[in-house]
Every structure is written in C-alpha cells, then in structure tokens.
C-alpha cells in the first residue's frame, strides 16, 4: 500500500488568514492547499488522500454553508472546519448538523485548529476505509446471480433452508446449493456476518 499524504484544503478570501493557516500547518508537518473562493475549490478534482477543509463562513459569492451543501450534493463529503469572525449560534447549529467537525471563532488558538484538523483527517481516513470496504462488498454482492440474491436476502431475515424453499417454490436441496455458492462469493463466515453485510448494502427480503 502506498504511503498516504493527508492534505488540508484552506478556503478563505483573506490572504493573510490563508498564509497564516498554511504556515501553521506547515510548522506541524501538514501539507495544505489554499483557495480564495469556494467556487475555485469546487472546480478542482477531489484529492486521493485523506483531506479536510478549513473554511471561512463569510465570503463573497458562495458562502461557507453553501459550499458545504454543494460538496454534499456532489458526493464529495469532506470533513469541514468552519471559521467565523463572530460566533453566530444558529449558523453554528446548522453547520454542525450538516457535518461540520468544528466551528472556530477568529481569532482562535492555533492548537485548537491543529486539533480540529487532526480529528477531521482521522474522520476522513475512517470514512475512506469505510467507503473502500463498502465498495468491495458491493462488488461481491454484484457477482451473485438473481436467485443467489434472493437466497441472500431470505437467509438474512433468519429463515431456514426449508422455509426459503417454500417461499421460492423450490426444493430444500436447491436452496442449499445456492446458499453454499452465495456464502462463498460473499466471503461470509457466519449468518451474523451476512446480516451485517445486508444491513450495509441496504438489502431487504423480497415482498411476498
């Protein structure tokens, strides 16, 4: 596995703040990239490595909250640390609801920003791992035949082979054969394992 290089994305219309934050991150060995407007950042391709956004709430054009929404829409969920000139409680609540990691009031303590950035990068790392696992799981699920998927769905509701055969209008033997192949393809070790997978995949049993 290649070595990961976390990156912090700074979005602030104030060049002094951008320079200062970049300098601060550099001093603790973190890479960063700066943008003066949310639109600029939206036009770049998403990073491959763990990343987070340090974002000023009040900017001309697209606001910080707007950017947060745009990212969500584009399926580019990234942890965001908000900065604001003055703590506005409704704004804070809204940002936190939509997944902000932290809300810092300028001027903030440098350590607070570093802590928030570390936390955000960890969150993104975890999220990336989760997304990778899910993608893998989905690939396995997609390799199942239609009948195997039906068996998968019914197994995870806790039915026995006999009951499944009855539901599918087939023999217990056939179900058993499908089940064997399915478990192998899904790389499951137990029924409980299959149940967790179904939950993650959002698979529900066919309606009778």
């Amino acid at each position, binding site marked *: 596995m290649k070595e990961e290089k976390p990156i912090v994305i700074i979005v602030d219309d*104030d060049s*002094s703040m951008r320079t200062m934050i970049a300098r601060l991150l550099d001093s603790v060995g973190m890479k960063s990239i700066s943008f003066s407007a949310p639109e600029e950042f939206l036009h770049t391709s998403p990073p491959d490595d763990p990343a987070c956004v340090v974002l000023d709430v009040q*900017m001309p*054009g697209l606001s910080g909250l707007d950017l947060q929404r745009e990212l969500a829409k584009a399926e580019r969920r990234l942890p965001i640390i908000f900065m604001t000139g003055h703590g506005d409680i409704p704004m804070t609540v809204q940002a936190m609801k939509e997944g902000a990691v932290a809300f810092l009031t*300028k001027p903030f303590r440098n350590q607070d920003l570093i802590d928030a950035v570390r936390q955000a990068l960890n969150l993104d790392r975890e999220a990336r791992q989760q997304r990778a696992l899910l993608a893998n799981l989905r690939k396995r699920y997609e390799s199942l035949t239609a009948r195997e998927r039906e068996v998968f769905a019914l197994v995870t509701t806790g039915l026995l082979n006999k009951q499944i055969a009855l539901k599918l209008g087939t023999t217990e033997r056939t179900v058993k054969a499908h089940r064997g192949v399915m478990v192998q393809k899904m790389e499951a070790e137990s029924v409980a394992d299959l149940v967790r997978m179904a939950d993650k995949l959002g698979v529900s049993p066919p309606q009778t």
Partner: protein
Amino acid sequence: MNHPAKAREKTAVSAVEQPFRLLADAIPEIVWTANPLGEIQYFNAHWFDFTGKSFAESRGWGWQSALHPDDLQIWLGRWRRALRTGEGCEVEYRLKHASDGEYRWQLSRASPWKENGQIVSWFGTITDIDLIVGRDLTERKQEEAFRTGQSQVLEMIARGEPLEMVLTSLMLLIEAQAEEMLCSVLLLSEDGAHVRHGAAPSLPAGYVKAVDGAPIGPKNGSCGTAMYLAKPVVVTDILRDPLWEDYRGLAEASGLGACWSTPILSGSGAVLGSFAMYYRHPQSPSGSEAKLTEVAIHIAGIAIEHQRWEDELRRTQGQLAHLTRVTTMGELTASIAHEVNQPLGAIVGNADICLDWLANGSPDLAKVAEALEDIARDGHRASEVISRIRSLAKKQLPQKTALDINEVAREAHALVNHEANMRGVSLLTDFGTELPVVSGDRIQLQQVLINLLMNGMDAMAATERQQRRLTISTAHDGGKALVAVSDCGAGIEPQQAEQVFKAFHSTKSGGMGMGLAISRSIIEAHGGRLWLEPNDGPGVTFKFTLPGNSSEAEP
C-alpha cells in the same frame, strides 16, 4: 455730382437734393440721414461744426467716437432695435464738442421713411439740450448708476457670494459717490466684544490689519465705540478726539484725519458691525452723506445677516449629516468588526507560530522574519480600517478640497465591502478615466455613496442571492463627474421617485428616513444634482453629478 459750394464739399451726397440741404443747414439742429441698413449717408453742416469731424470720419458707423462712451452702448442698442423693428427711437446722450472737448447733452431722434411699408431711408435730428437739462440729467444718470450698483450688490448677496466680496463691492460703490471719502465695514465678533475685518478696499493695509480683533468699548475709536453704544459716532478730528486716544498714532501713521461711524443693526436691532466714512483731513458731515450712510448700513446689514443665516444653515446641515453618518455607521458595525478582526486573527495566529518556533530552539530565522513581516502588514491593515472609520465619525464643518471622485468611490467601496459580503451582495465597480477633478468635502461625499450603497443592499434583501449585484460606476458627463449606484432590487414605483428624497420618508422598518434627504442636500450644497432612474431590468439607479473644479462646465 457737380457741387459748386466748395466749403461744403465734404458734405456732398448726391442723393440729397439741393433744397433739402439748404433747409437742413438752416435748422439750428444736427440733421442726418441713413440707408435702411443704418449706415449714415448724410450729415448737415452743424454736425461738422459741433464735432469737428470730417464726413469721411463720420459716415456709415464712424460717428461713434463723438459720443460719450457711457452713453454709446445705450444709443447703439436703441438704434439697432429701431433698425430691426422699423420703429423710430429717442435717446438722451452726450456728444463731445470740438471747441472745448466737453460733452454736452443731446436729444437724438431717428424716424423711418417708408414707402409701401418698406423703409427707404432714416432721418434723424440731434438737438442740443445741455443748457436746459444738462446738470439735472448728469445727476439723474449718476443716481441711476448708484441704484444699478446697489442692485448689483444685492444680487451678489442673493447669489451667495462671499461676504467680503459683497462688502468690498458695496464700499467701492459708496466711495464712488463722494470725493475723497474712504469707506470700511467692520463686523462684531461672535463673542460680541471685538471688531473683525469686514471690508476696506481703500484704507491702508497696515491700518486694516491693526484694527482687526480690537476690542469694542466706550472709548475705542469711532467704530469700536459706535458698536459698543449702538449709536453713530462722528469724530471730525481724530488727532484731537479723546475717543481715539489709544489709536491716534495708528491713525496718524495711516494718514487718517476724520472718521464717522454708524452701527449696522440686524432686523431685530442687534449690532452686527459698523460702517465708517474716513477722510484724510479733519472734516464735519455736510448733511449730504446721510443718504449714503443709510444705503450702506442697510445693504451691509442684509449681507451680514444673510451670511449668518447661511453659516447657521451650514452648521445645522453639518450636524444633521454627522448624525445620519453615525447612524449609518451603527448599521455597519458588524461588518467593520469583521474587517478589523480578520487581520487581528492573522496577527495572533502568526505570533503564536513564532513563539512556538522560538520555544523549540534553533528556529529558521528566515521563516520567523517572514511571519513577522506579515504581522506588521496586518497591523497596518487593521489601523487603516480604524482610521477610515474614525474620519467618518469625526464631527467637523464641511471642508472643500480638490477631489478625485474615483478615490472617494474606492474608499466608500472599501467601507461597505464587508457588509456586502455578509449580505451576499456582489459589489461591482466600473470607474471611468480622466474624470474632472471636483471640489468637495470628502467625508460628506463618501457618506452619500455609503448611503446609496446601503440603500441598494436593503433593496435587494428579498432578491435571489445570485442576482444581488450592486454596481458603483463613475463617468464623464460634459464638464461634470457622474456617479451612479445601481441595484437589482425590487425597484421604486415612479410616483414614489421624488417621495424618497423627502425627509422622514422611509420604506424600511428601521429607517429614519433621513438618508436620501441628507444625501440630496449634500450634493446640492456641492452644486450638483441627485436623482433616480428605473433600470431596464430590475432595480433602480441613483445618479448624481458634481461640477468640475477647474472651470465653468462646458455643456
């Protein structure tokens, strides 16, 4: 063609019949004829005898040099009008007599000779009336000139010309009415205890300067005493009068012998200043000066009172402008705080980084220096914001200086830029080049712009975020500078277009309704105009013009 009378050869005009000429020469008046264009073609003998001029010198329009220069324009005006309208005219003017070079009063008449409604020729007579009316007429003309002079001074007052200019013109006018008389006006200071220079175009400069600021009192020369007593003070001999004890040396050095002073009173009877007539030598009033004094104190009183009202108005307007300015700044507080906070945030952050570097031993000094430079720059930035705001908050009388209107617009832009960001408004600029320099008060003009910009933002509160565009533009408009603030808001109904400029008219819940009224009064005080126009698209544009500084604007 063939005239035997050699002595009259210069009068020879073929068009004029012999009997007519004989008759004309027999009349004891000057007789002339002119063609329909007004070119004189014939004078009788009396013209040449009176003026001493030849026919060649006098023919056509050449006769003008014989008239008194003060009267020539009047005659030319009437004569040209007569030529235009075809109606006769009659004017009294002075003609120079060849024998002694003196001017004598004449009555000049011109009548048209028409055939079939067309003018064929003009006939004129010039009758010597000097013996009958000469002296009387001279006096009448002088009085007329004096009255014209008075109305000119009154017009200056009405036009709002500076008090010193008005009073100087008045003094020169009064001085022209009498021999060897020098005039001055002194003003009573605001504390009511000192005299201030008003106007004294003919008094020695050293004397004028020494008197300025002297106290008033019961023994303070003619003027200081007249103001103190609110009564006329006539000093016929400065060198002997006890009232002048303290100023005798000064008066002697300035060559002043007599000074008669009369207080100038306001409509309500308060002392405003004094008017004085000075003479080089001791002199007593003859009685004829009373009328001049009356005119002088009457007009000077009007001028001084007018100036005081104007000052008062200016002060009040200044206070009101300051008040509305401070109110507007209150609305800007949040964005101003943000604007100061931004560099402060960077300063604190950079300082912390430096401290960390230093605490960790052997820091990279180049990096430290870089961070410190940033700190210094941000410190200056914060203080610039503060000083911009402080100059707006300052309470002072308007001061006119030569201004680049783009500079004023840029400053106003900087002051509201953050507010615009916070309200999601894009603030755009479109500045013209080579605009005329305007003369104005920087703070007040900034105030007008800030007010228009804030109004524009308010008007777009309900507008889609992407469409909230506010544009400041400047341009050249004839010799004037044109500034426009254009929004994309809800717009203003045409019937409301003038209402919005009225005081206490407000469409906003929190508004005082003074902003636009004050803005208009500020622009008008700068000799400009402020109005609004609906946009082709949504919203309105507020525009104002300011006259160029250097010269009278060419249209």
